[in-house]
Structure formats: C-alpha cells, structure tokens
C-alpha cells in the first residue's frame, strides 16, 4: 500500500511549516534545474555547430512533437493515478479511436471536428466497457494480472485494426489551416499553424483536466483512490466507477492525441507504437502520477529527441527510440519518482 508523504495530518497545507511540500518543491526545482542546465549546455554546442536559425527550427519542432507525446503520456498518467497500472493498450486504443474518427469523416462525411468528438465519445464508452468487463473483476492490487490484460488488449486491438483497415498508410486531415504559407516566422524558424494549434489545444486539455481533478468531486475521488484503495472504500467512494471514469477519460484523451498526431505522420495500425514509447519516457520523466509532469516530460523528451538526433549525426534519424530508452533509464536511476511526481513510502 502506498502512502504519500503529504498525508500527515499535522502538516497544515500551504502554511510555512509545510516542510514536506517545501522539500518536494525543492526536489522538483533541483531536477528541473539539472535538466535545464543539460539543455542549455547542449544548446550552446548546437548553436555553434549549426547556427541559430536551424537550432530554433529544431527546438520548435521538438517542442511541438513533445506536446503530442505529452498528451499520450497524460492518458497513461490518468490511468496510472487511479489504478497504479501502466496501460500498455493506451496507444492501440488511441489508434483505433483515430481510425474511427477517420472513418466517420470519410464514410459519413461528418465535419472533422465532429468526427473527432464522436470518436472520442465512442472510445470513452468502449474503454468504460472494457474496464467494467476486463479490469474490474481483478483485485485492484493485482497489478501483474491487470498489466497482462492490457498487453492482451494491445495485441487484440492492433490485430483488429489491421484486419479492418489494413496496413496501407493513409493521410489524416488536420484540424487547422495547413497550406504552404500558413506559418509564423520567428527568427527564421517556421511555426506552422497546425503545430501551434495542436500545442494550444493540448494545453487547453491539460488545464481543463487539471481543473477537473483539483476542483470537482470526481477529481477528489480520483486522488483518494490513487492514495489508498482501502480508505476510499471506507469513505464510501465507488472504486470501480472512479477507475472506470479514469479509463474513459484516458481513452478520450488518447483518441484526441491520436487524431492530432496522425497528420504529422500517417495513419496505419502501427503509428502509435513509437509515440507510445516516447510517451512512456515522457511520463516517467515527468512523474507517472503528475498531470502537469506528463506535459513537461513530453516537451523535454521531444526536445531531447529533436536535438540529439539532429545534431549528433552518428545517432541517425532512427535513434529517437534510443533517446527514449536512455531517458527512461536515467530517470529511473537518478530520480525514480520523476521530475514532478511524488515519492511514495511503503509500509507493511
């Protein structure tokens, strides 16, 4: 059972004597400082190596890709916060949702916004059903069995999508204006409206989710279940329904992330696999239990991949996966709770 260190009654929240919160802030600031120093050092090398304009362009691309990774990481975090389980099927669920949006837009010729919203609703409903049928029968503490079920879902969803839609890559339309001339120019770097719109949309989603989780009763139930299943049950919180809503929200967020990510690559049953691994790196870096951390982690992972693969030619373009791997390894080695996550204590 995980007990967060902030749960002590004698520590008044927000007051000057809230030592633990201060320590947590200091630890987060320290971690962010180390990352910022590393980035700054590499930036100096990068600017000397390739000039300022190229650097700015790579930073912009990296940050905008990073927002996409952060959004998938957000979906992972939503499920992890409520259940303590990493949902390996998150990418595949988002991929199926994206295909649904694509089908709604193509076959029924719905406007794209409406198609995406319908796909989000459908995938949220499906995820709620999956949670009810496949996840809830297990003891919430039996993480191994639940993880294996999510792996089975990954396998089944990928195969199902490949069976229905095939492996031909398709282009997915973007929500935003995307002509050749639709970009801002900052210091010579091109910021396309699509990327900026995507980033803004993701930020809005994060703010809304953060508000929901910090201001509503559902959010309170979320945090309660995440802290202690036993105590939540005693308080009369319906554990299953809370977990179910976390799955539904995560699926909707994942579908939206898929719909935003698909225009940057192409749409086929494997397009989320790589993004899912980047999202794991992002969630680990930001802290698996932190909503804001997932987006921060996503941006940092995006930056790291863009800069490292861009400026170290020996690594090559395919080496984003290697960057993600090293990010995960480094975070687990040096700061296992992530930059903004909470370290938990255990007791028998």
């Amino acid at each position, binding site marked *: 059972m995980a007990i967060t260190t902030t749960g002590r009654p004698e520590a008044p929240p927000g007051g000057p004597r809230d030592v633990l919160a201060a320590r947590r802030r200091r630890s987060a600031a320290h971690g962010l400082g180390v990352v910022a120093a590393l980035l700054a050092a590499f930036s100096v090398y990068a600017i000397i190596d390739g000039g300022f304009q190229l650097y700015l362009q790579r930073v912009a691309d990296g940050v905008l890709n990073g927002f996409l990774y952060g959004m998938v990481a957000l979906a992972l975090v939503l499920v992890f916060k409520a259940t303590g389980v990493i949902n390996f099927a998150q990418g595949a669920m988002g991929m199926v949702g994206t295909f649904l949006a694509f089908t709604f837009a193509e076959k029924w010729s719905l406007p794209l916004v409406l198609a995406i919203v319908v796909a989000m609703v459908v995938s949220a409903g499906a995820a709620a059903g999956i949670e009810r049928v496949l996840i809830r029968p297990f003891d919430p503490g039996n993480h191994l069995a639940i993880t294996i*079920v999510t*792996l089975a879902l990954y396998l089944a969803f990928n195969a*199902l999508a*490949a*069976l229905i839609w095939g492996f031909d890559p398709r282009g997915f339309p973007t929500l935003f204006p995307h002509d050749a001339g639709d970009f801002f120019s900052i210091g010579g770097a091109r910021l396309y409206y699509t990327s900026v719109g995507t980033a803004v949309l993701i930020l809005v989603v994060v703010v809304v989710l953060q508000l929901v989780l910090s201001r509503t009763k559902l959010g309170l139930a979320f945090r309660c279940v995440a802290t202690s299943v036993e105590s939540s049950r005693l308080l009369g919180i319906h554990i299953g329904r809370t977990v179910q809503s976390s799955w539904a929200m995560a699926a909707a967020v994942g579908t939206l992330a898929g719909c935003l990510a698909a225009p940057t690559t192409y749409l086929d049953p494997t397009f989320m*696999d790589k993004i899912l691994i980047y999202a794991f790196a992002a969630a680990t870096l930001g802290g698996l239990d932190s909503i804001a951390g997932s987006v921060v982690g996503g941006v940092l992972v995006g930056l790291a991949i863009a800069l490292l693969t861009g400026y170290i030619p020996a690594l090559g373009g395919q080496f984003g996966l290697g960057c993600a*791997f090293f990010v995960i390894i480094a975070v*687990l*080695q040096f700061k296992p709770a992530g930059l903004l996550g909470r370290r938990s204590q255990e007791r*028998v």
Partner: protein
Amino acid sequence: MAAFTVEEGTRAHRGIRWGSALLAAAVLIVLPLLTGSVGTIESFTQIACYSVAILGLGLLTGHCGQISLGHSAFVGLGGYTTVILVADHGWPYLATIPVSVVLCLIAGAVVGIPALRIRGLYLATVTLAVAALFPVLVDKFPSFTGGTDGKFVPQEMASPDWFFVDPYTETGPATDHYYAVLVVAAIMFLIARNIVRSRTGRAMHAVRDAPLSAAASGIRVARVKIFAFAVSAAFAGVAGSLLVIQVPAVSDSRFDLYLSIFLLVALIAGGSASIAGAVPGAIVFVVLRTWIADWAQSLDLLSGRPDGGQIVGIASGALLIAFVFLLPGGVIDGLGRLRRRVLEIVPRTPEGWQRHRFTGTATTPTRPALREG
C-alpha cells in the same frame, strides 16, 4: 476424491516419478524417429527452443512477479551472437552458447539495475523500449549484423561421426538439430528447477508474494529481482542460440516486440509459476505462430488481403485474457487438477505427529472448535 492416494517420498511415489521421467525421456528421444517428415521434426525442435525462452520468462514473471517485454531482444542477442561467431569466426555452434549466456546476463543486469531497484512494474516500460530498440540497433551496424538483409551461416550444424543418426538421409540433419537442441534444453530445465528450489528461488517467491515482508526478513529485494531478470535473459539468449541451430539465419524483423508478447501469451497459457508449464506453453506458441498463421493465411476473409497474422493476434489476445480469467495457473494447472482426480499425492505425515496432536473436541463434525482446546 482421487482413485489412488500416494504418500510423498514413499517407494511408490519415487517409482511414479522416475517412471514418468523415463517415459518422457524415451518419448522425446524416439519422437523424431517415428515421424517421417522434416516439417514435423522441425516443429518439435522449435517447441524445444521456445520452451527454453518461455522457461526463462517464467522464472521472471511466474516466480519473481515482474514483466519483461524485452525478451525478444535477448533471444535476438543470443541468436546474433551465435550467427556472428559461427559465420565470421568459425566457432562450432554449441560452443557459442556460453558466450550468449554471458552476453545476455550482462545485458540483463544493465537493463535491470535501474528498473528493478524501485517497486512496481517499471521493468515492463524499460524492456518495451529495449524490444523496440533492438531491430533499430541491428540495422545500425550492418557490417556486423547484416542489417536489414539479415545474416546467415552457410554451413548447418553437422553431427559428429559417432552419432547414430545418418546425416545423409532426408530427415537426418533435422533429427541431428533436434537432439542437440533437446540436450541443451534438458540441461536448462534442470538448471531452472534447481534455481527455483534454491535459497534464491525461495527468495524470488517471497519477493513476488510480499516484497515488503521479504525485505523485512532480510532478503535483498533489488538484488533478487536483478538476479532473476539477468538469469531469465540468459535463458532467452540460449533459446536464441538454439533457434539458430535449428535455422541458421537471423534477421531484424524476427525479434520484434510481438515475439516478446507471444512469449508472454505462451507463458501464461502454459502456466507461469511452473517449470513444466514451459512445454505446453511452447506448444501453444508454435501452434499459434506457425500452424494457425499458415492456416489463416490461406483463408480469404477480407477480399484477398493477407490477414493471417491478424487472426492470430486477435486469437492470442483473447486466449491470454481467457487464461488470466479462467485458468490463471495455465494448462499445467488444469492437467494437474485432472491428475489429482485419478492420483493424489499427499505430503508425508511427520513422524511422531500423534504426540503433538490437537486435543480439542469438535462440536461440529467438520470444524474443530478452537475455544474448547
């Protein structure tokens, strides 16, 4: 109730155990001589190879409670080690297996050390990245690994002259490979059994069942988990070397994430916390990945698209969920239950147990009342 009841450690029990072991060995030895087709023998060899990988994964998942999605990479590491040593340096096939073991032990420890010091299933995320990274790394060093074209050994493994199988018949080479793989696999099964029965094996069970209590009892939890993962990676490496003995060729696409997930499916289907479960698991693996895939390939469900692999994917996902729900102990558990209907093996009653007998009188015939003791 069982028809027969045998006490553990008695002559009858030992007779049953030795008899069944000898019977199994005899069946395994005679098996390729009975079947005339090369394809069947190769399937048996594959089952033996994959059973070693599944056994290794079982040590980690079933006995230590961690999930690895990176076993495809370790199988691949073992396979590439054997191919490179045999093709470029002229080593004999079997001599490369210790090298695979050492390389995979080191690789497993390097991956495991950061991920396993912390509580939780972090190993799964790290190893997912490892599995995705392995094909990329293979393509990165084409001069060494052959890159996307794959790498093969021109010379198949040949048997020594004194061996009783004639290599110049049609099934000869396949039978040779079968025996070589069988012997190595048998040794690996013995090693796994001894690990599970050792002090470390008991510590692994404690770490799986109650990590905090295990730590409180003086078990170094992180060290046990890292040991389990490194050993399990080494088993996977041996399986990779054995696969190369069977078919002396490797390619990057052969060791992808799906291999890892299918190994997990096979493990759960066979029975994760059991040494013998690796065999039915490997049978499930080979049936799913080759037989059903080939059969489904010939079906024409969706307008001629090649959809064989997809049906296997859906079936495996469904199978995995079904086993986790209905028979978490796997096939081997089901077989054990069937056997217990016929033959029950009970632990030996300790000598002089009468003296320590509980002296309470029962008020109900089924449940002794503790208060009256």
